[in-house]
């Protein structure tokens, strides 16, 4: 098992750091899956996470100038590591103006990702700051736990409103209630609702589009036969939603969600080089 990679381009480095920062806000600990062409940050829906799952995919070619990976075996040319993304995020903080960052899988005393940041210096020799991030190597027999989650049979699919507005609203609603109802219809309307003994608050978003597959084969029910105005809803833990929204450092190119009535909300956030899927199950 071997892994070594290098980033030299500052823009790529900052972009990568931002991705890691977002992941760190969403998961205390997650799985990093390395393949020849991609990196994946995976959180599987264990009870400990509150049933939330995450699937984040990056094309290594868009970030790394050098990327060499040799998996556990020739027929399984992949590596699965368990890591605390906050550690990686902190290591990358020192790399904001770095000349280069090298990441290498080592096993001196225990498996680690060694992040070596080469910093500019006035003298001829560079300064190198090295961080050893402990990782757990996940054995092959457990790899099936980390398969890409299947997209649920959703009842409605809709583009999200401006994330900034959604974030402000959800942050305030979080002070008032532990759970939030997300509902949407095929007419581009979405409502966020909370209701307690003290107060009820509903925010209405309109004129949101819906992605092309919404009325196609992604949906069990074709749009023609359905009432476009009827709302599909799911009640979820508001903190999970707030975590997702608060973690977004950059505005995604596309942001949408699929709702399976009373079962699960599936968020898809697409940036140029990164796709992030986040599943929040409905509260019982």
């Amino acid at each position, binding site marked *: 098992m071997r892994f070594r990679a290098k980033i030299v381009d500052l823009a790529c480095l900052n972009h990568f750091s931002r991705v890691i920062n977002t992941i760190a806000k969403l998961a205390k600990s997650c799985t990093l899956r390395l393949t020849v062409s991609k990196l994946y940050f995976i959180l599987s829906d264990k009870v400990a996470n509150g049933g939330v799952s995450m699937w984040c995919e990056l094309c290594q070619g868009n970030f790394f100038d050098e990327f060499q990976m040799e998996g556990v075996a020739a027929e399984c040319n992949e590596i699965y590591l368990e890591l605390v993304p906050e550690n990686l995020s902190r290591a990358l903080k020192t790399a904001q103006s770095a000349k280069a960052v090298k990441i290498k899988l080592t096993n001196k005393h225990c498996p680690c990702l060694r992040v070596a940041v080469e910093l500019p210096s006035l003298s001829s020799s560079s300064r190198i700051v090295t961080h050893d991030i402990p990782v757990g190597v996940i054995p092959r027999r457990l790899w099936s736990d980390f398969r890409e989650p299947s997209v649920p049979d959703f009842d409605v699919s809709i583009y999200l409103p401006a994330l900034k507005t959604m974030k402000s609203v959800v942050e305030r609603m979080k002070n008032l209630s532990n759970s939030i109802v997300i509902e949407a219809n095929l007419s581009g309307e979405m409502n966020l609702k909370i209701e307690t003994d003290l107060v009820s608050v509903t925010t209405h978003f*309109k004129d949101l589009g819906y992605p092309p597959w919404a009325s196609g084969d992604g949906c069990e029910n074709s749009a023609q036969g359905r009432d476009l105005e009827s709302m599909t809803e799911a009640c979820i833990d508001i903190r999970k939603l707030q975590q997702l929204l608060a973690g977004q450092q950059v505005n995604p190119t596309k942001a949408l969600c699929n709702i399976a009535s009373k079962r699960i909300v599936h968020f898809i956030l697409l940036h140029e080089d990164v796709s992030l899927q986040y599943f929040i199950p409905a509260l019982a």
Partner: protein
Amino acid sequence: MPLSAEPAGSSGEQYLLSASLDNARHLSSLLRAVHFQDHATCFATANGLRVTVEDAKCIQANAFIQAEIFQEFAVQEESVTFRINLSVLLDCLTIFGTSSLPGTPTALRMCYRGYGYPLMLFLEEGGVVTVCKINTQEPVDLLDFDFCSTNVVNKIILQSEGLREAFAELDMTSEVLQITMSPDKPYFRLSTFGNAGSAHLDYPRDSDLMEAFYCNHTQTNRYKISLLKPSTKALALSCKVSIRTDAQGFLSLQYMIRNEDGQICFVEYYCCPDEDITEAEL
């Protein structure tokens, strides 16, 4: 549900209180200046809205938002009173965030049907509408400090910038804030007695910051610092503050606050003295 669809007396019932405000911040920033307890009493008359917060039976803060600040303000009876959770109200008024971007104010419509009904808020920003229903409670008796101008012994008016730093840096390890007002030196002194020692801050009567100085008797009074500390929020917003004491040592702090549109509103704090020390303690 757009704001225009909200029924104004659609079932034949009029709202006892209905008000519109183009910029919800004109209300939320004032309410924040008195937000040191969860509950507040709202009192509305044709003159406007008064929101009162009290604590420990010794401190009371009032925010006054006069009718002219609102684009529309209608009260169907002589007065309308209800008690409401101020933290919840503030979260609703600031639902779209608290950043002060000048181009995108949040518009507010507020309606109250009467006793037993919730307060309805309709907030709109950039085409997004939020509807809030906040339960109201039975109003309780409020303290009456009976602080009228004829009882005032000492009064000064200061420009707020002079006091802001002092209040922000009050030694909170001191149990009390001691205020001395006198026709003689030190004229106006703020003192604290904390773990590290005592601190005195003197303002001379001829200071540029002093707009008015009417002190005829020397008075030194102490107030519980934990009760007065929340007034720092009102001070931060204000441009001027008037400080008055009466013969019993009750303190009145009146803050003149100019909002984003240049309109004037007032917030006042009343506080009971902690101990009665009327002789000079210099």
